[in-house]
């Protein structure tokens, strides 16, 4: 009966009723939102063009917050980056039911573009802009799935490793970063950009932070670092914070955002910078013998994990999970099967995802889970 509804005389009335029932729902934004929040992201982005009402419903920040809390998704792909900073090569390693491919990120594959950091789906990259009389590095934060990016106001001149007196021209309008005269030693001021990190938690807020760390001074054992935080909702850099003293061994290649803080590690310490509080603390890592080797440090499923491999007992991985209040690390051992040992070559890497430890093998670009 449903098939010939169009031709039977009864059907026209049922069609009108159907329409009116549909309209009754369409007029109720709460109901539409209730339905839309149950949709996956892809149809949602398409349905933005259904009507103005739907567009504003779907674009609403409260709605997307609600949606991402409802639909917590596991990691869908790994984004692998080569260390070649000039011509970055990358590949995308999708897991099951992920439609992303390398082509999706082709817009990043320009010479002079380097990808600096990523956090919960946002990428931070820098691009060399040659159009002005001197080339300037510009920094961007982008969302690869929507391919929308936002330029982070000028930090380019700070990036020049050595800035001479009188050459220092950070645009004060764009960026509140000031370096006081008194902190300059001698004629030259050594400013090394140590890293730029993007901090974003879609479950907490739609706004992201960019954390910029540079070295203002260095002695034999310690850095003195200064930190500035960019807030996306106001589009400005905050006050320059620091100087913080931090052990030299701390590696700024990999900053891990978790629990509102950015974390860096050395072989023996962990440094945590509280983004909103603006303070830095340094804590010892567990297993701080010289022979230990950190194979993984990162965040997954809302937990901070550290995987350490002690020299001499390569088959044993020590997995630590940080408590949210930083009181202690929970310790867990993971005995590697012998066949997994070959993964412990330097070019392979480990990652921690959904309570499983995975390994990526470089030579055949494959993944396996322990």
């Amino acid at each position, binding site marked *: 009966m449903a098939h010939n509804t169009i031709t039977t005389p009864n059907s026209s009335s049922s069609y009108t009723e*159907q329409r009116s029932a*549909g*309209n009754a729902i369409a007029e109720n934004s709460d109901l539409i939102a209730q339905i839309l929040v149950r949709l996956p992201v892809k149809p949602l982005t398409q349905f933005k063009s259904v*009507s103005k009402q739907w567009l504003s419903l779907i674009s609403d920040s409260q709605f997307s917050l609600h949606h991402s809390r409802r639909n917590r998704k596991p990691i869908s792909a790994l984004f692998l980056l080569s260390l070649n900073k000039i011509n970055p090569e990358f590949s995308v390693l999708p897991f099951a039911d992920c439609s992303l491919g390398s082509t999706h990120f082709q817009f990043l594959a320009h010479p002079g573009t380097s990808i600096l950091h990523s956090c919960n789906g946002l990428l931070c990259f820098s691009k060399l802009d040659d159009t002005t009389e001197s080339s300037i590095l510009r920094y961007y934060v982008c969302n690869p799935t929507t391919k929308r*990016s936002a330029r982070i106001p000028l930090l380019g001149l700070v990036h020049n490793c050595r800035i001479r007196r009188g050459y220092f021209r950070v645009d004060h309008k764009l960026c509140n970063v000031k370096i006081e005269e008194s902190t300059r030693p001698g004629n030259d001021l050594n400013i090394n950009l140590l890293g730029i990190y993007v901090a974003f938690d879609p479950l907490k807020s739609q706004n992201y932070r960019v954390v910029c760390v540079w070295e203002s001074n260095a002695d034999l054992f310690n850095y003195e670092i200064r930190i500035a935080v960019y807030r996306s909702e106001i589009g400005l850099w905050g006050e320059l914070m620091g100087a913080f003293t931090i052990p030299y061994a701390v590696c700024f290649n990999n900053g891990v955002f978790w629990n509102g803080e950015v974390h860096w590690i050395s072989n023996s310490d962990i440094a945590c910078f509280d983004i909103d509080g603006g303070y830095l603390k340094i804590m010892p890592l567990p297993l701080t013998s010289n022979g230990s080797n950190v194979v993984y440090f990162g965040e997954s499923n809302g937990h901070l994990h550290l995987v350490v491999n002690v020299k001499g007992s390569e088959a044993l991985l020590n997995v630590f999970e940080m408590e949210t209040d930083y009181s202690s690390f929970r310790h867990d051992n993971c005995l590697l099967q012998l066949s997994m040992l070959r993964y412990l070559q330097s070019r392979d890497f480990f990652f921690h995802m959904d309570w499983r430890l995975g390994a990526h093998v470089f030579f055949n670009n494959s993944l396996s889970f322990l």
Partner: protein
Amino acid sequence: MSSSLEKNMLILRSSDGEEFIVPEVVAVMSKAIKNMVEDECASNTIPVPNVDANILAMVIEFCKKHDESEAEAASDLKTFDSEFVNRGQEALYDLITAANFRDVKELLDALCQNVAEMIKGKSVHHIRIQFLGYQLFEILTSNFIWNIWCDRDFD
């Protein structure tokens, strides 16, 4: 006997005048009815305007099942839910309106989930016909907005 029946039973009257005798525990799954019962502003017969006998019967069926099967396995209830909401669009939309109006949370959840599944793979055009069949003007303007939105240059 009859007093105990009156005590635990409520009579719901649909918009077209049909009456249903329902246990109170089932009726109060609708928050709106629950409020009325708690405020004691309800006599034995509770009118349910905007909901006709057909739809009201379905809502009561759903609530009864959910009330009975509290102890049952959740998977059974899920099967029931998915079969229950598997109806023609007309009934589905009427049910949603009723569930929303009477504030029956479990039913609304199941129904919204079903509609979401239904429209997941549909085209924008289809959705417009389904939900906003008559709003031609709206569609034209939203198209216009959409085009502007797409052309925006995100640097």
